[in-house]
């Protein structure tokens, strides 16, 4: 264990970050589990998101994305396991809350209040508050500041809520399906804004979507959930480098499967296509290796129902 990992001892092994480098983490969870009665919304979720990333939280509807975000924001409490957000477990404390920006999917705003009212409320409720940025942004977008937000269109409301979240100047943004309500142009515009914010430093973003295409352009990190479990978590570049599509003749692949992990296999009488996570070079000359796209990777892991949880791809080679 590195000294850094000793400091983070209670989190258990495998959470140190890639190769045990001391990269600071915005979010780390350890076996995070949330049950509602008999329903398990999130199961054994161990992930880490380094600071300064834009992480795409991808998964089909009902995979547990919202639950994970709510646990990180401190709006829900884990049934078991632990989360560390900005260095501490989520808790009710103004300093902790000041560092988190969470926007729920329903875009909660006071319908009878205007955007200006929300800006002023934010000024009363937050230590760092850049209300002027909201006014500027909404003016640019031609969204009226003095109309009740309940009378705005869904897209306009989403813009108001997003601008308000950014005005809080949080260190971690948790956005639940933020682009769902936006048209393609507004979507691109908003994601660009996020990228600028991260570029400027001090901001980490986790944003969820059930479509990888929504977030592919801006995100450099991915967390994939399916059936309440983590399927994949890591830097997109690393993940793409670690996976290959192997195309070869239809033959026994036992040897291959021994050395690499087969994520998805498609076999026809004439040809075998494997999506594998590499564990060293592919030695079998009969197979042609080609790079994998993020979309292919996500679909492959989504198709893989059980056994799930390849939670610690980022910590390949470390003790599990």
């Amino acid at each position, binding site marked *: 264990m590195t000294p850094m990992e000793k400091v983070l001892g209670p989190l258990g092994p495998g959470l140190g970050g890639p190769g045990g480098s001391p990269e600071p983490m915005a979010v780390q969870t350890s076996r995070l589990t949330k049950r509602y009665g008999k329903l398990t919304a999130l199961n054994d979720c161990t992930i880490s998101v380094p600071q300064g990333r834009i992480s795409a939280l991808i998964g089909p509807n009902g995979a547990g994305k919202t639950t994970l975000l709510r646990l990180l924001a401190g*709006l829900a*409490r884990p049934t078991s396991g632990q989360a560390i957000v900005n260095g501490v477990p989520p808790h009710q404390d103004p300093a902790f809350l000041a560092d988190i920006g969470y926007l729920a999917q329903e875009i*909660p*705003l006071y319908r009878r209040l205007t955007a200006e009212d929300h800006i002023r*409320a934010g000024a009363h*409720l937050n230590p760092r508050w850049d209300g002027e940025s909201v006014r500027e942004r909404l003016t640019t977008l031609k969204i009226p500041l003095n109309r009740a937000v309940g009378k705005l269109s869904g897209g306009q409301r989403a813009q108001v809520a997003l601008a308000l979240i950014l005005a809080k100047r949080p260190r971690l943004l948790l956005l639940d399906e933020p682009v769902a309500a936006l048209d393609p142009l507004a979507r691109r515009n908003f994601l660009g804004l996020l990228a600028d914010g991260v570029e400027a430093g001090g901001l980490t973003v986790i944003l969820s979507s059930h479509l990888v295409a929504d977030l592919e352009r801006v995100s450099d990190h991915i967390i994939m959930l399916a059936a309440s479990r983590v399927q994949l978590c890591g830097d997109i570049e690393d993940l793409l480098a670690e996976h290959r599509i192997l195309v070869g003749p239809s033959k026994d692949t036992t040897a291959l499967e021994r050395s690499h992990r087969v994520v998805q296999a498609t076999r026809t009488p004439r040809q075998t296509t494997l999506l594998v996570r590499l564990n060293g070079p592919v030695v079998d000359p009969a197979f042609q290796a080609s790079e994998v796209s993020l979309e292919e990777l996500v679909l492959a892991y989504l198709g893989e129902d059980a056994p799930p949880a390849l939670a610690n791809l980022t910590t390949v080679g470390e003790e599990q």
Partner: protein
Amino acid sequence: MTWLVWRQHRIQFYVGAALLVAFAILIVVTGSQVADQFRAAQAACAMHQGCRHLGGLFMGSHVVGFLIISTLGAPILVGLFWGAPLVAAEAEAGTTQFAWMQSITRKHWLTVKVSWMLLAAAIWGGVISALVTWWSSPNNAEQLNQFNPGRFDIMDLVPVGYSVFAMALGIAAGALLRRTLPAMAVTLAGFVAVRVAVTLWLRPHYMHAVTVFYKATSSFTPPGAFWQIAQGVVGPHGQAIAQPNNTPYVDGVPITVLPGSCAPLANSAGPANPTAACAHALSQFRAFVTYQPADRFWTFQFIETGLFFVLAAGLIGVTAMVLLRRDA
């Protein structure tokens, strides 16, 4: 946070304030008429010899009188329309997720909101009660029982306790159910149930009632506008005497337990001369009256107000536990 509370609830505040002002104008205008009427009645009474009491004379318009009695229901209004939606409407609209993700704790959020609401409820109850008390002061002077719900429950201190309790009940129901309409229903039912239970079963026992025994043939009336809890007759050995209906009585004693010589006296209107046997039998019986003395009025007001404050505090405690422990 106070700014947000004000901004969110100022319409409710304006409506509440407008209702109070309208009520105040009505009460002040009609109240001065009632006072004039009272003075006139007193003067008229003074002209007649032996007129010490104006009796059950009700002064003031009966429409306003009805409105005065209706203020029995005033406390529940704040519970229904301010208390129940306070948390429930926010939970329904999801705006708790907005408020709770600002840089304030849920505890802080709840404390500020609830404090202002309870204060508003106390003012609501207090202003209405003050107006009603003032309007009714001439009638109160003629009240035979100050503990009568038409008097005790709508005047002086207790309406403040009821309003604060109704508000707390609404808030707690809303926090538990997270839906406004069911919370309103629970608030209404809960308020009525608690008020009825307290009035019928608790209030008579705030202090040990006074019982006075006296000769059945004599009479006794406690001083002032006392509250009679019970009355009856006990026999020679202190045993309670049943008081059946449809039986003639002599001095409050049913003739069934008296010698036959008393029978002619039963229900007789004029002065009667009982036979010696009958008089002796009658002298064996004592009448009693159990009552809360009139001078306990303020003690009872304080006790009942305190009781409802304690209930309100408990409900706010439940609300805090629910909101701070449960997932948002």
